[in-house]
Structure formats: structure tokens, C-alpha cells
């Protein structure tokens, strides 16, 4: 039944126009990164063809995001120092803002707030991964950044229905995903999953987007999906985001917590209160990254 609704929604999107695409260079980098025969030099030359992307990569590479001690002056050097996987994830993170630029939001769906939540989620995932010693070359950051991407698609193609979803979330004080099921018969996770597959994103990323509300279903990389789920909850606890529901959450009862703890037992030792308290600084930092990734700084300068 839900399958049918999803198909119907896919059809409607295809009738209206086409699914938003990632910039070609990003798709190429993703595919080249999966091919062991491709050299760093070839990837550098592909990226360098896009001056705006290259400039952003260098900007992030030289920011506190990686905390490198030396200055990185070329894409090739960035690839050597940071490694192919980190650059690939960075390219995905930057490119998504080209597809879905930040623009002043409508009252029901504020894209600025949306990205603030997403980048906050990415940053929390990054910090948690660092604390637990399971960094994944920035994939955890990008997964946090992209986990809700289906919401943008819903807002873009089904604006009226999506507005109803938001209203219902507040009215009934229910999680947004429940309201989506009620109004649309599908969810932002399903739509996001479809988009991620269409973009040929790495499979573990697709999985994290698909199952970030049901981490027990993740099979490929349950740690990544659980990280994203927990970061999402922490973001909510910090009031970053726009979901209407404000119910209390017991993190340690969550499947994501249990899954992550099974993989990383030291999670038990996390001083949760301290961690949540210190997140303020991280969220501030995430806002800065949002500026760098999306180039809103420059946009503001022009204005």
C-alpha cells in the first residue's frame, strides 16, 4: 500500500519535471572513487574543471573542519593529504548545496533552518564518531547533512501536502514522519532513499538516509545509521530544527544507542549531560561550516 503511494509520488515528480540532480562533476567523482584503476591525478583534473567547487574544497580543507597544520594550495595536494574518501565526501557535501541552495524560506518550510539542522546533525555525528574512534572519512558528516534531504524534495514538488504535514505535526504533537505517512502515504526517508540511489551515492550513505528513523534495519553499516539517528535526536534536544514534536527522549532506550553501544562499548562512559552542554560550541561551529559549504558568506557580501 505504502509502496503504491511511493510509486505514485515518484510518477508525479517525473511528470512535473525531473528529480533534482547532483552536479555532473560530483557524480563523476563518486564513480571514480569506486574504481581502483583511477589515479589521484585524474580525479584532481576532473575536480579542477569546476573552479567554484575547487575553491570551496580548498576553503574547507584549510578551515578548522579538518584542522590541518599545513596549508593546502591545490586539489591534488588536498587529495594526497586528506585522501580520496574524505575529498569524495566533501564533494558530495558541497555539491548538494548547488542542487538545493539555501534561500529565504517559506514559513512552513524554512530552508535555512533545514540546513542548519542538517549541518548541525553532521557536526554532531562527526564529534560522536571522533569520541568513539570510528571516524569514517567524513561520511558520517555527509550522512548527517543529507539524512533529511527527502524533505526538500517533498517541499519542492508537493508543497501543499507538505504544508499539511507540518501543520499536522504541530496540531497533533506527533513526529513529522508519522504526519507524512498520514498525509502523503510515504515518508521523507523513502523519498530521500530514492534520490540518493538516483544520485548513485555510496551505498552506506543511501542506507543511512533510508533508515535514519529505523536504524534496526541497517545492515551494511549500522554504526553510521545509528550515529545519524542519535545526532538527529541530539539536534532536536538542542532545539535545532523545525520538527514540531517536543516530547522528551530517552536516548539510552533508543535502538540506535543500543546498536552503537554494541559496536562501541565505550559509549556507555559518555557523560551525556556534559556532551549535550558542550554541543552549543559545536553547533556554532556547524553554522560556520554551513557558510563555507554553501558559500552564503559570498552571497551576503554581494548583497
Amino acid at each position, binding site marked *: 500500500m505504502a509502496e503504491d503511494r511511493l510509486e505514485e509520488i515518484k510518477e508525479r515528480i517525473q511528470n512535473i519535471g525531473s528529480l533534482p540532480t547532483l552536479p555532473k562533476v560530483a557524480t563523476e567523482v563518486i564513480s571514480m572513487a569506486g574504481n581502483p584503476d583511477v589515479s589521484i591525478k585524474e580525479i584532481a583534473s576532473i575536480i579542477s574543471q569546476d573552479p567554484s567547487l575547487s575553491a570551496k574544497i580548498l576553503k574547507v580543507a584549510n578551515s578548522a573542519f579538518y584542522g590541518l597544520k599545513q596549508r593546502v594550495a591545490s586539489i591534488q595536494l588536498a587529495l594526497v593529504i586528506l585522501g580520496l574518501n574524505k575529498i569524495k565526501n566533501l564533494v558530495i557535501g558541497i555539491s548538494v548545496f548547488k542542487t538545493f541552495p539555501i534561500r529565504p524560506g517559506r514559513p512552513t518550510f524554512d530552508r535555512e533552518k533545514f540546513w542548519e539542522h542538517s549541518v548541525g546533525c553532521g557536526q554532531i555525528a562527526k564529534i560522536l564518531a571522533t569520541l568513539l574512534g570510528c571516524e569514517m572519512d567524513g561520511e558520517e558528516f555527509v550522512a548527517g547533512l543529507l539524512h533529511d534531504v527527502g524533505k526538500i524534495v517533498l517541499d519542492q514538488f508537493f508543497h501543499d501536502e507538505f504544508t499539511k504535514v507540518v501543520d499536522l505535526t504541530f496540531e497533533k504533537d506527533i513526529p513529522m514522519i508519522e504526519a507524512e505517512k498520514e498525509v502523503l502515504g510515504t515518508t521523507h526517508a523513502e523519498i530521500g532513499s530514492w534520490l540518493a540511489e538516483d544520485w548513485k551515492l555510496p551505498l552506506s550513505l543511501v542506507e543511512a538516509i533510508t533508515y535514519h528513523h529505523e536504524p534496526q534495519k541497517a545492515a551494511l553499516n549500522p554504526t553510521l545509521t545509528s550515529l545519524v539517528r542519535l545526532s538527529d535526536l541530539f539536534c532536536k534536544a538542542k*532545539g535545532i530544527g523545525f520538527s514540531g514534536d517536543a516530547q*522528551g*527522549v*530517552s536516548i539510552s532506550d533508543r535502538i540506535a544507542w543500543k546498536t552503537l553501544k554494541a559496536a562501541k562499548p565505550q559509549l556507555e562512559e559518555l*557523560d551525556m*549531560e*556534559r556532551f549535550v552542554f558542550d554541543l552549543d560550541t559545536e553547533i556554532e561551529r556547524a553554522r560556520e561550516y554551513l557558510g563555507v559549504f554553501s558559500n552564503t558568506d559570498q552571497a551576503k557580501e554581494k548583497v
Partner: protein
Amino acid sequence: MNSPQLSDDRFTQIRDLIYAESGMYFADTKKYLLESRLSKRMEEVRLNSFDEYYYLLKYSPKKREELSKLFDQVTINETSFFRNMPQFQVFEKEIIPEILKNNNAGGQRLRIWSAGCSSGQEPYALAMILNELAATKAFKFVPEIIANDISGAMILDAQKGRYKGYYLRNTPELYKSKYFTKNSDEYIISNAIKVMVKFSILNLLDEAKTKVMRDMDVIFCRNVIIYFDDEAKKKVIGMFYEALRPGGYLFIGHSESLHNISRAFKLMLFPNAIVYKKE
């Protein structure tokens, strides 16, 4: 004149004395804090050295009186009404409705404990919120707010219920106009709110007195146990656990943590507030 110096040895002695009498613990890193608070007290009793002051605390016939004055000085907190608003919002919008929904006997008693209430800002703020909730008639309940502090001076101030405007800087306009009367530079709390709160002096480590605190629905104890060492913290938090009803909640200061203190509670994350639940 040079200001008196507090030697490390003397600091340890005074610190241990305060700890034995009150449970408040000044770690070595908090020496400066204790030094400045003791200095104020010394000026008032006109003593010039920490040695003399220590003898006063230890051997003088007036030592009880002086200790109590010292506690007043040591526990002075910056406490405005509605300090850390998200906690009050969660209390009003989530916690109280949940408690009343789960025990909807009709006309039920709602027991709130403000532990370490300083000069009354916290329990009065809670009283205002409960008064507003009662007025909506969405719930029927009889509120009972118990508030106490180790410092007698604080309790006297609380009972007076007069505050400089500075303490109302976080107070919503509605509450300000409804529950305070302005008299020159002071705001006086209304009688309707005053009668809702029962004040008393209490040392949280005094087991004989705390064991009668039972059947609490919500306990607020914010920025109080920061003065305690781990052993005293564990004791007090364990006592709160006993004092709460199942389903009750504990609020601590928003920068405090029960990590390594207690695992008895379930930690609940609310928007910008962490609350501990007794299941």
C-alpha cells in the same frame, strides 16, 4: 594595607570544617572563591587574618552563629526569576501535564520541592506557572510547593518576597504585571503566590530531616550540589530518588551532570533541557 593571604594549610582546615558542617565542598581549584567569600565575612567581623577567623569558627562560643552567617555568604547565588527558561517551559508544557495525565484522580495533590531555593525566586516562579495552569482549568490539582535552603538569611529574604528589578530581568511581562506590585525600586510578590510556598531551613545532608520528604512529583535542585563532593552528591541524589514518586522528575542546573553520581534515574532530553525521571 595588604589583603590577608589564605595559606594552603589553613584553606584545607576551613574547607574541611565547612564540609563537616554543611556538606559543601570547595575543591582546591575553588580556593579563590572561598577566599573571597571568607574575606567579606572577615571584614564584617573586623578580623584581619584567616587564622583568627578560623579560631572564631572553631572555638568561639559564637561559632554556631558565625557558621550560619558564613553559609549565608558562601551560598550567595545569582538567582533571577525564571533563570534558564527552557527548564521552566519543559516543566510547564511537558512534565506537569504528563504527571497529571498519568495520575488523574481529580483534585490530586501535586508536590513540588525546591531544594536550595536561595531567596525564593525559583519556588515563586514555579508557583506562578502552576497558578496559570490551574486557571486554564485543563487540569484539576492542588499544588503544594516546599522550598528550603541551608541559609536562614536566604529563607528570611524569601519570605519577605521583595526583589530588586534586576532579579526580574527574565520574567515574562504577564507574570511581572500579574504577580508583582512595584514599590519604588522593589517588586513585591503577590500574596496569592506567597501562600503557595512553604519555606523552611534545611541541610540536604541532614538525614533525620530529609527522610520525611516523600511523595514528591517534581524536585528542583539547581546549582546546589556543585558545592558538594562526590560522596555528598551521591547521598543527596539518592535521597532525592527516595523522595520522588515513581514517574516523578528531578531538575538540576543546566550545566550540571549526574554522570558518575547516579544511574538510578532515566535521563530525558527535552528541547534545551535535560530532566531526570524516576521510573
